[in-house]
C-alpha cells in the first residue's frame, strides 16, 4: 500500500534522478535515490558540531536500519514496514500473502554507491498492521499514472483485499541517467 501522507517528513534526500524516459521503466515516473550524507570529521573541541555529527551519524545508521523509515530501500515507500510487523525486508509476516500487483522505486544504496530497483510489494490478508508507518511522495503521481500512485490499496487484486504491511525487495540494479 502506498498511502501515508504527511505523517512523516521527508528528510535527507538529494534531488531526484530520473531513469531514461525511453525505457519501459520511465512509465513508472520519476524515481528517487537515497541520500549520501557526508559525515564531518569529528571536531572534539566544538560541542555543537559534535552534536551535529552525532545526529548525522545517527541518521546514517538509520539508512542501514530496516525498521527505520530512513532505511535506504524505503526511498519510495508509503505504508507500514513489514519489518515491524513480523516480516523482514523481503518476507511477508505469517498468515499474509504477497500482493499480485506492485509499484517500483529506484533507491541509492549508500554502502556500494549503486542504484537498485526496489519492488514495494504489499502483504495482504488479515488485519492492518498499523505499525511503523512511513511516507515518501517523491515521484508519486495521481491515479492516471497508476504505477506510481500511492493513494490506493495495492492488495486490490488479491483474494483478500486487506492491506497488512509493505516489503521492499531488490529486483535489480537501475540504469541511471542524470535527471
Amino acid at each position: 500500500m502506498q498511502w501515508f501522507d504527511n505523517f512523516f517528513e521527508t528528510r535527507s534526500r538529494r534531488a531526484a534522478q530520473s531513469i531514461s524516459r525511453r525505457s519501459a521503466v520511465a512509465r513508472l515516473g520519476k524515481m528517487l535515490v537515497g541520500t549520501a550524507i557526508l559525515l564531518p570529521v569529528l571536531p572534539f573541541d566544538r560541542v555543537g558540531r559534535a552534536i551535529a555529527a552525532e545526529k548525522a551519524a545517527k541518521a546514517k545508521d538509520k539508512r542501514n536500519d530496516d525498521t527505520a523509515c530512513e532505511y535506504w530501500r524505503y526511498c519510495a515507500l508509503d505504508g507500514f514496514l513489514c519489518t515491524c510487523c513480523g516480516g523482514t525486508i523481503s518476507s511477508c509476516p505469517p498468515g499474509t500473502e504477497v500482493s499480485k500487483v506492485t509499484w517500483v522505486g529506484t533507491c541509492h544504496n549508500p554502502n556500494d554507491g549503486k542504484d537498485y530497483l526496489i519492488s514495494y510489494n504489499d502483504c495482504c490478508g488479515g488485519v492492518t498492521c498499523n505499525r511503523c508507518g512511513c511516507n515518501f511522495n517523491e515521484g508519486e503521481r495521481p491515479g492516471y499514472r497508476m504505477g506510481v500512485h500511492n493513494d490506493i490499496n495495492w492488495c486490490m487484486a488479491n483474494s483478500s483485499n486487506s492491506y497488512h504491511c509493505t516489503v521492499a525487495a531488490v529486483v535489480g540494479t537501475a540504469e541511471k541517467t542524470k535527471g
Partner: protein
Amino acid sequence: MLAGKIRKIFAGAIIVAASCHVQGEVPIDKLTVLNLPPASPYRLYLSDMVISHFVDSKLMIIDGESLNVIGHVALGMTGHATLTPDRSEILVSTAYMTKLNRGERIGQMDVWDATTLKLKAEINVPPKHSQSFPYRGKIRTSADGRMVFMQNSTPASSVTVVDRVAGKFVTEIATPGCWMIYVPQSVSDRFSTMCGDGTMLTVKLDAEGKALERKKSAKFFDADDDALFTSGAQADDNYTFVSFKGNVQTVNVAGDAAVAEAPWPLATAADVKAGWRPGGYQPVALHEKSGRIFVAMHAKGKEGSHKNPAKEIWAFDLAGKKRIDRAPGHHATVIAASRGDAPKVFAYSTDKSTLSVFNATGKLKHLKTAGPFAEFATQLDVQ
C-alpha cells in the same frame, strides 16, 4: 418503548427496573431517533478512509457553522460518497467482504436518504471500485442525477455506470491510463476523465448509459514535469485544477472533447523561488459567484511535497488571474467553499484532524478551528 418502566431481559429473567411515579422536575423522556434538520448552505460532508481499519470507512456530516457533528454514514470498505444534484440522497460506491477480510467481495452502490440517513437501496455492481483515498471524482452523478459514474481499479482503470432511476448497473467502460470522473452541468450524457498522457478523455453515452463515442482532448499538461492534481473545483461545465508546480488550468468538459484554457501561474517569480506550491488532497476550492479560487499553499516545495499541508491559503481572482488575498493555512490539506451568498471557506487538516472555518465574504477571516474530526479524511463536500 420506555414510559416509566424499562424491560430488561437478561439471564432469562425480566426485570422491571423502574416503575416509579415522577415527583421531580424532570419529565420522563420518550426515546426517539432524529432526522437531520433542513440543511444550511454550510452543511459539510467529510469522507474518512480510516486507514488502520479501512473495512470500516465513514462519512461524517458536520454543521459548518457550529462545527457540530450531526450524523454519520457507513461507507463500508474504502467507500466513496457523492450527493445527488438535489441533495436528497448520498450515493456510496463501496464493497463488502462476506467475512470482513475474506470470503466473497460484494460490489455495490449504497443509496442513503440524506434526511433520515437510512439505507434506501443497494444496487449490485461489479466488485471493482477503486480502493483508494476518498477524492471528489471517484463517484459522480450526471447533471440530471440519473446516471452514476464510479471509478474502478483492478488496477486497470474503468468506470462503472449505474442507472439510478432504473436502479441497476448499466455497463463498465474501460478508461485505460485515465483517472477520476468529471461531469458537465449543461449536458448529462457524458463524463470526462484525466489521462496520464496529458489529455482528457470524454466518453459520450447513449440513452441507456452505454459508451457511444470516445474523444481525447489535445494534450494540455505533462504528468512528468508538472502533474495536475486530479481534485478540481467545478463551476458549471468548467473544472479548475492546480498543478504540482503551481499552475492553474481550467478545462471545459461540455463538448465531445474537453477543451483546456491556457495555464497561468499562481506564484510570482519570488514566490517560486521561495518554493510556494499547492499541496494536499483537495488543494483547490472555488466560489463561483465571486469568481475566486482558494488554494492550499506550502513553502519550500519540491518534488514529493505535493501532499504537504498548507502554510497559507491563497485567494485568486479567476478571471483576472491574480492573487487577491492570503491567510494562515491551518495545516490544511483539504479546501472547500460554500455556494451562493455569504460564502465560507473550510480548511481541513488530515494531519491534525482539525477543521477551520473562514468567512469569505470579503477577505478571508478565520472564524474558528475545531476537532478532532475523522481519523484520515481526504475529501470535504459542501451542501
